[in-house]
């Protein structure tokens, strides 16, 4: 009996010792179920949390999927919810908050938030709704070697300069379509419009209401900018999203790209691209549009939320586990997986583009309850303009009409 107890104590000590330090995992024996998108930064964070706290939890499940936003509302609606935490971004937090599916975290931040910096807290009306851990944005990818070959000096900083550089590359006969952008019909087309519209200083809605306000000169200028750039993109550009543009870049088929910062690490690593592509690739700030100084990009964050429909103990254990991973040790181990907002992060070459874009004053992606309806209308109705079937005025009028139909049905407009 004594021996058995002794052995048990030893095993427990060994288990505790195996974690790098005694992480504070909150209440014991709780079930922790994390849902998130499948990319390296989220794998690192959730994996570290699991290493720290799986031993003290009754179960620790991580589900990372590509289409999280399609079903997360349904998964969090029942009580108890299917997941105790969802890792979200700006737009997806709104989607959960619209249905009231995530809980305020103020007391949990107070209890477990020693590692959390104030700028990580996503606060709405004084309530902390999410804790961000990484940033992301679109920015300019450049093949310096090809620009030099075409006789372009320096890295293009404005839309005009990007267009001029693309023209020089085409004129030099190096590439017919030197530019890649994520313009796949749907969400991606809508997002590209957002980049340039925000860079021109546009607002999506009339102040303080859900009435659309995008049929204006700023939107027309944004559309014209995108069309000038798209002239230099492969004619198939309306079918290309991140995976396709990254592949085209790694295959050496493009010299200028407007792509997500989170793709930078994947392009610069030693898989996929040839040495020439990797060596020549430079990540720079997103180009500015018009006479303005705002980079054409939207700033995004990714952060953790805690489900509303679970017990307080489960919520506490989940929060403690995830926060226990937000340390400089985790960052040191996975430095190049993300633009971390955490202590100890050393920005490497893969982070240069996002850092420069954020420093240039790019706007965050709007956190407004009805932005999803607007984004969806943009993604569906602008396509005719890019195909050349429709004028900018008609396309923007269509967007407003489509948005109003959807917003009325969703109860945002009368």
């Amino acid at each position, binding site marked *: 009996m004594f021996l058995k107890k002794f052995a048990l104590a030893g095993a427990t000590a060994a288990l505790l010792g195996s974690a790098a330090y005694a992480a504070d995992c909150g209440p014991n024996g709780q079930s922790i179920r994390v849902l998130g998108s499948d990319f390296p930064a989220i794998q690192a964070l959730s994996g570290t949390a699991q290493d720290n706290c799986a031993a003290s939890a009754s179960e620790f499940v991580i589900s990372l999927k590509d289409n999280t936003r399609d079903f997360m509302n349904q998964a969090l609606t029942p009580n108890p919810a299917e997941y105790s935490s969802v890792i979200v971004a700006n737009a997806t937090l709104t989607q959960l908050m619209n249905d009231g599916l995530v809980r305020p975290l103020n007391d949990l931040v107070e209890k477990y938030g020693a590692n959390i910096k104030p700028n990580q807290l996503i606060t709405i009306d004084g309530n902390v709704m999410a804790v961000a851990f990484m940033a992301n944005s679109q920015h300019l990818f450049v093949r310096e070697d090809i620009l030099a070959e075409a006789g372009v000096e320096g890295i293009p900083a404005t839309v005009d300069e990007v267009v001029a550089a693309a023209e020089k590359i085409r004129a030099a006969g190096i590439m017919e379509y030197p530019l890649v952008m994520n313009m796949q019909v749907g969400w991606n087309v809508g997002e590209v419009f957002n980049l340039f519209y925000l860079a021109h200083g546009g607002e999506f809605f009339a102040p303080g209401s859900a009435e659309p306000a995008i049929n204006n000169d700023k939107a027309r200028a944004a559309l014209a900018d995108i069309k000038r750039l798209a002239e230099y993109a492969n004619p198939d550009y309306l079918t290309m999203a991140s995976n396709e543009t990254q592949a085209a870049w790694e295959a050496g088929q493009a010299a200028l790209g407007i792509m997500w910062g989170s793709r930078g690490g994947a392009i610069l690593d030693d898989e996929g691209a040839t040495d020439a592509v990797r060596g020549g690739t430079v990540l720079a700030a997103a180009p500015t549009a018009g006479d303005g100084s705002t980079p054409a990009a939207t700033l995004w*964050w990714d952060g953790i939320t805690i489900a509303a429909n679970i017990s307080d103990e489960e919520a506490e254990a989940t929060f403690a586990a995830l926060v226990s991973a937000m340390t400089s040790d985790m960052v040191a181990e996975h430095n190049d997986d993300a633009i971390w907002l955490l202590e100890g992060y050393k920005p490497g070459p893969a982070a240069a583009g996002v850092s420069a874009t954020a420093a240039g004053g790019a706007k*965050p992606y709007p956190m407004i309850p009805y932005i*999803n309806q607007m984004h969806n209308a943009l993604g569906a109705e602008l396509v005719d303009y890019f195909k050349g079937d429709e004028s900018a005025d008609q396309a923007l009028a269509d967007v407003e009409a489509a948005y109003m139909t959807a917003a009325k*049905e969703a109860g945002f407009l009368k």
Partner: protein
Amino acid sequence: MKNRTFFWFILPTLSAMLLFIALPIASVFVQSLHIEHEQVLVVSESCGPFGCRETTSVDTEATEALREERPLGRFNGLSTYTNRAHLAFAEVGEAWRTTESFGDFFDRIYNLRFYRALIFTLTYTAVVTPLVIALGLAIAIGVNNLPRMIKGPAIFVSLLPFLVTPLVGSLILFWMVDSDGILGATLQWLTGDPTLSLKASATLTWIMLMVYGIWHTLPFSFITFYAGLQTVPEDTLEAAMIDGATRWQRVRHVVVPHLMPLMAFVTLMLLMDNFRVFEPIISFQAQAHATSLSIIIYNDLRESGNPLYGSAAATSMMTIAGVVVLLTPVLIRTWRDFSRKAH
């Protein structure tokens, strides 16, 4: 059969049909008459890594209270059916009043998502259905006349497209028609136009989708007709031969009439299948040039973040109505044949 016996005989089927077909359709219909409650919005300050700003958010408690009270949402009558995302009565009327030529009117109509989807869906159904029937019959007769030795392998090969999962099949074709793919590059070489892109042209996208549709459903009509061919009476065929009928005349006057009931069956199945065309459009990333009714339902439910159930339900009801309209002629014909035989 006595009415009583008949009732007990049919009861299990009838209750299953009620439970799994009638009830869901009724519930979708009820859903289509409702829209979301008005959202109670509050303006507040939101802060994050990129600074603070004024934003609006939903007062979930107040909205939840409304929802508790009436879980189905606000009653909206048939307004969802007539709004811009569906039949768009107001927009169509406006277009009719303000346009001069029929071409302009058509352009305006084609700009509305429901009609755009309907036009592609109907074109797809009208092109793919007859071609699949005609080609399926031709292949079945061809295979049926093959020597015994190669019949088996020929049947197997003809069935292959049916074995490929639609999503995978269309994805493979999508890669092949890419300007770097084998078909896309060959086309560029043949036409001498290095900028030719199948994916960037609406006409070529439509043709590609329909060719894919024919390729994928052909085995279904082929194997059905092939099975039917095994029952064609030899005596009648021989009699026709003795009367000096040519091969074509035998097909036209003996085989086809014999297969008519099967034709009706295949037509019904194909009409229903083709009218809800969906997978190839997703796999081909073809939404820029072609959308179908199923695509706009999918879009309302999946792409818009918080789903628009009313809108999706209304489109679903109209899809069902469309299928009924398409099937009616075939059903009437079958019913007439049936009545004729019964008397």
